[in-house]
């Protein structure tokens, strides 16, 4: 029996924070555990087989956390598994009532807004890149070889596709957040 499970792009498949949390919780219920979360964990996550555990996970995006960010969570009994990019992943074993880190509507909406804002940075960069590549290909075509121009157009199309994907992700997180509010 396998005692290791590798999951690729886990954070890209579950872009809504609560979906990611629930997925980790279900994995732990099935006995699949992560020991640490690292920068590349959004791309690859390695789970080890162990005992079934009832864990509550929390996905919290904090771009510039204050010094008291980690101590505050730890005081409440949360264990920091690490961070991937700006996302901190917290865990707490429980029985009975499921613990929550975000206990009012305002902070739950705020968490989703921070996630959308982070995605919007990449969205803007891809869009700007696509715009720059298009402008160069169209207005400076005289000074470019046919091969270079084609490469620029291909780059612009690729960046636009990525921007559309990220735009869709932002809308999806926003809509799911609204549904959760209701």
């Amino acid at each position, binding site marked *: 029996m396998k005692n290791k499970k590798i999951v690729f792009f886990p954070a890209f498949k579950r872009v809504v924070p609560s979906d990611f949390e629930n997925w980790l919780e279900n994995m732990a219920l099935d006995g699949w555990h992560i020991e640490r979360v690292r920068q590349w964990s959004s791309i690859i996550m390695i789970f080890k087989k162990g005992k079934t555990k009832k864990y509550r996970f929390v996905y919290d995006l904090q771009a510039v956390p*204050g*010094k008291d960010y980690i101590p*505050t969570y730890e*005081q409440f009994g*949360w264990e920091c598994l690490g961070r991937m990019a700006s996302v901190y992943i917290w865990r707490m074993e429980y029985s009975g009532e499921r613990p929550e*880190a975000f*206990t*009012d509507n305002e*902070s739950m909406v705020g*968490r989703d807004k921070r996630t959308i804002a982070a995605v919007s940075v990449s969205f803007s960069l891809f869009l700007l890149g696509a715009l720059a590549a298009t402008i160069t290909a169209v207005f400076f075509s005289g000074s470019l070889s046919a091969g270079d121009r084609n490469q620029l157009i291909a780059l612009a199309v690729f960046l636009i596709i990525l921007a559309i994907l990220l735009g869709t992700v932002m809308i999806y997180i926003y809509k799911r957040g609204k549904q959760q509010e209701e």
Partner: protein
Amino acid sequence: MNEEKAVKKYIPMTETMFFILLSLQQEQHGYGIMLYVRQLTNNRIVLGAGTIYNSLSRLERDGLIKALSEDDRKKTYITTELGKKILHTEAKRIAELYKNVKSLLG
């Protein structure tokens, strides 16, 4: 932030913000706030770590509370003069609501 802007931003206030500001009439850290609010509301409101951290960051940024000390990375906070004014404004609003509801329901 000046008082006018703070009134616009915080009034009416969420229950979370109200109880956090109320608990910071005396020096407290995040976990202490949760315990205080839980006791005050007979377990009705149990604030989570994420909610408290984000609320404290916001209140400190807007000048309604200030950090007093930092022991072992644990920050303690207290309400500023601006925070007290905003809390009193909100308390008056709630008292007015109560008065109106009471006269309506008898």
